[in-house]
C-alpha cells in the first residue's frame, strides 16, 4: 500500500505536471526547429509569436463569453483556436513578406536573420502590449478538474490523492493529436517530403523542382498552428502574461537544441527532457521517501536537490552540458 501511495505522490507532483509542461515546450520547440531547419535562422521572436496567437484566443474567449457561447465542460478557448491560428498565420505571412523575405532572397548569413528576428520581437511585443496590455490574464472556464484528490481517495481508499486538472488532460491530448498529424504530414505527404528535402539540401531540392515559395508558405502555416496551440495550452494551464511568454522562449530554445536543432523528433523529445529535468531536480522528495523508506531512515530535511528558484537555470545548464559534449543534440540535428 505504501508503495502505491509513493507512486501516486510522484505521479501527482512530478510526472503529470512534467508531461503537461513538456508538451507545451515540445510544441514551441518544434516551431523553433522548423523555422531553423527550413528558413535557416534562430527565431528570437518565438515567445512573442506564441504570445501573439494566444492574445487573440484570450480576446475571442472574452468575446464569446460576453455573447454567451460556451463549449460545455471544455474551455471556450478551444473554440477560438481556429480563429487565433488564422490571425497568427496572417501576421506571420505579413512579417515574412515585409521583413524576412528580403534577407532570404539576398541569402544573408543566419546571424543577420537572427538579428532581424530580434527587431520582429520588439515590434511584436509592442503590438501585443498596446492591444492587450502587460497584465496577467486568466481565460480558463468550464470544468477545472477531471479528478479531484478527495474523489480519488474515496474511490481507492489510499491516503494520497491524485488530482488531474482538465487543462493537463487537454494539453496532453491536444499535443498528441497535433504532433501526430504533423509527423504524418511531414513523412507521408508529398508536400511534407519536399519540405524535408528542402531542409536537408536546398540546392538539390530546388534542382528537383520543389517550389521554394510553397515550402516557405507551408512552413509558416505549420509554425503558426504550432505556436498558437502551444501558446493557448500554456495560457490555459497557467495564465496569459506577455512577459512570461517572452521568457519561455529560453527553455524552448534549450529544448530545441538539446533534441538536435532542425530535427522535429528531437525537439519533441527535448521538450520532455527539459520539463522532466526541471521538475525532478527541484521536487522535494520528502513525502515520497516517507512512504518507501522504513521509519528509522525517514529524512528530516525536504530532500530537495535544488530550490525551485533554479528551475530555469537547470534547463539552461542541461543545454550547456549538451553543447559541450554533444553539440549536435541528443538526436543528430544539423551540424553546427
Amino acid at each position, binding site marked *: 500500500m505504501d508503495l502505491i501511495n509513493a507512486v501516486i505522490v510522484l505521479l501527482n507532483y512530478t510526472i503529470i505536471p512534467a508531461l503537461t509542461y513538456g508538451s507545451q515546450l515540445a510544441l514551441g520547440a518544434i516551431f523553433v526547429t522548423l523555422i531553423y531547419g527550413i528558413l535557416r535562422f534562430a527565431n528570437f521572436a518565438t515567445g512573442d509569436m506564441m504570445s501573439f496567437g494566444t492574445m487573440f484566443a484570450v480576446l475571442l474567449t472574452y468575446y464569446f463569453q460576453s455573447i454567451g457561447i460556451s463549449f460545455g465542460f471544455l474551455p471556450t478557448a478551444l473554440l477560438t483556436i481556429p480563429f487565433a491560428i488564422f490571425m497568427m498565420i496572417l501576421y506571420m505571412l505579413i512579417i515574412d513578406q515585409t521583413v524576412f523575405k528580403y534577407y532570404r532572397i539576398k541569402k544573408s548569413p543566419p546571424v543577420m536573420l*537572427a*538579428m532581424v528576428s*530580434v527587431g520582429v520581437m520588439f515590434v511584436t511585443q509592442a503590438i501585443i502590449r*498596446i492591444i492587450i496590455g502587460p497584465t496577467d490574464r486568466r481565460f480558463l472556464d468550464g470544468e477545472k478538474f477531471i479528478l479531484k484528490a478527495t474523489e480519488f481517495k474515496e474511490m481507492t481508499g489510499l491516503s494520497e490523492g491524485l488530482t488531474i486538472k482538465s487543462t493537463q488532460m487537454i494539453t496532453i491530448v491536444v499535443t498528441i493529436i497535433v504532433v501526430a498529424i504533423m509527423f504524418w504530414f511531414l513523412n507521408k505527404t508529398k508536400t511534407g517530403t519536399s519540405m524535408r528535402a528542402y531542409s536537408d539540401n536546398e540546392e538539390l531540392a530546388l534542382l528537383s523542382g520543389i517550389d521554394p515559395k510553397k515550402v516557405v508558405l507551408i512552413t509558416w502555416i505549420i509554425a503558426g498552428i504550432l505556436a498558437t496551440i502551444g501558446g493557448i495550452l500554456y495560457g490555459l494551464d497557467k495564465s496569459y502574461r506577455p512577459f512570461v511568454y517572452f521568457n519561455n522562449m529560453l527553455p524552448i530554445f534549450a529544448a530545441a537544441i538539446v533534441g538536435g536543432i532542425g530535427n522535429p523528433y528531437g525537439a519533441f523529445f527535448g521538450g520532455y527532457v527539459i520539463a522532466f529535468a526541471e521538475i525532478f531536480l527541484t521536487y522535494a522528495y520528502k513525502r515520497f521517501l516517507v512512504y518507501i523508506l522504513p521509519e528509522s531512515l525517514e529524512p528530516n530535511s525536504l530532500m530537495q536537490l535544488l530550490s525551485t*528558484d533554479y528551475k530555469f537555470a537547470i534547463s539552461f545548464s542541461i543545454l550547456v552540458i549538451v553543447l559541450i559534449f554533444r553539440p549536435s543534440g541528443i538526436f543528430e540535428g544539423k551540424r*553546427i
Partner: protein
Amino acid sequence: MRNYLNIIIAYSIMMLLIILVGIFQSWSIALTIFNYCMISAVMTLGANIQWGYAGLINFGIMGYTALGGLAVVLVSVAPVPEAWSVGGVNMITCLGIIILMIFSTRYILKNIQKSNKRNYLIAGIIIVGLILIKIIAGPAIEQIEAVDPAKTGFLGGLGLPVLFSWIVGGLFAAGLAFIVGKVALGLRADYLAIATLLIAEIVVSIIKHEDWLARGVKNVIGLKRPAPYEIDLQTSPWFINLVEKFHSAKLDLANSLTERQDVLNQLVIDASSVYVKLCFAGMFLVVVIILLIITQKALYSPWGRMMRAIRDNEEAASAMGKNVVKQHLFIFILGSAIVGIAGAMMVTNDGLFTPGSYRPMRYTFVIWVMVIVGGTGNNFGAILGGFVVWFLWVEAAPIALFFINLFTAHLPETNEIKVHLINSAPYFRFLLVGIGLLLIMRFRPQGIIPEKIIKQ
C-alpha cells in the same frame, strides 16, 4: 577633417536633443538621460569590440552587467561581522573546495588519457564536491541569512572605495567570459548567441537567489557614492553661495526676505541634484574617453588589422599562422570586461543593486540594437548608437503621447480608444526601437556611422 564631418554632425545633433530636453523638461532629467547614455555607450563599446572587431555574437551582456553590479556590492559595502563570525569559515571552506575541484579536474584532464575512466573520475569529483558544499554551506547560509534579515542577512563586502569596484567589475566579467569562452566559442554564430544568453540567465538567477551573497531580490540599497550627497550640499555654505551667485538676477526679483529665502531653498535643492549628476557625468565621460582612445588605438594597430582579418576570413587568417581560437577568446574576455565596467558604473550611478531588474530585454537586446544602429566596427558609431537608442528608449513615451494626442484631438476625452492608447503610451518604445532596428538593417546595414578602413 572631411572624414570626421558626419561624425561631428551626428554628435552635435545628439547633444542638441539632450539640451532640448534640458530646456523643455528639466536639466535634471537631461543629465539623467546623458549619464545613462554614457553607461550605454560603454556597454556598446564592449559589445562592439566583440561583434564589430571579431564578429563574435554575445547575447550574454545582461550577465556581465549583473556581475559588474555585484562587484560594487562586494567591494564597497561594509562587511557584516556577525555574518562572518557565524558562517564565514564555512563559506571560505566551500570556496576552497571549489578551487580544489577545479584544480583536480585540470590535473585529471592533463594527466589521464581520454577514456571512460577519465569521464567517471571527473563526474565523481564534481558530485562529491557538490555534496560536500551542500553539507558545509547549507547551515552556514541559513545562519548568515538569519543575521538581521531586514537590513543585512549577507556577508557584506570589503568596505573599499566604490571607484575601485569598477575595475573589479571588469575583472569579474572577464573571469566569467573566460569560462563562457572556453565552453561556447567553438559554436556557430546563432548557437553562440543562444548559449551566451542562457548562461547569462544562469548567472543572474544565481545572483537573484543566493541571498547570502548580495541579498538577492531583497536588493542592496544606499551604496557608497563617489560624488557628494545632495543633503550635504544643501547645508554647505559654499554651495549655497555658488547658487546665489548663479541666480542673483532671479533672486533680486523677490519682494521680501522670506520670499527670497524660499526661492533660494528651492534653487539649492534643484541645483544639488544637478551638481551630483554633473559629477557622475564627469566621471563617466573620463571612462568613455579613456576607453575610446584605447579602442581606437587598438583598432588601427596591427592587432586590430589581424582581428578584422580573422573576422572577414577565418580560414585565411588561420592559414597565415594566426591563432584564431586564442584571439577569439581574448577579444571575448576584453569586450565582456568593458561591459562589466559599465555594469558597475550603472549600479554606482543608481546607488542600489536590484538583481530582479536584470532582464534580457533591457540589458541584452536593447544594447544590441544600439550596436547595430550606431555602426558595427566603428567606436564612434557604437557610442552614438548608445546615445541615440537610449534617448529614444526614454523619450519614446512622451513622443508617443504627443502624437496620440495630436491624432485623437478630435475625439472626446472619454473615448475608449483614446484612453486605451494613452494608457499604453509606454509600450511605444518597443515599437520605435523595433522598427528603427528593422529599418536600419534593411536600408543601412552598416549602421549610422559605418566602419572605416584606413588604407596605409
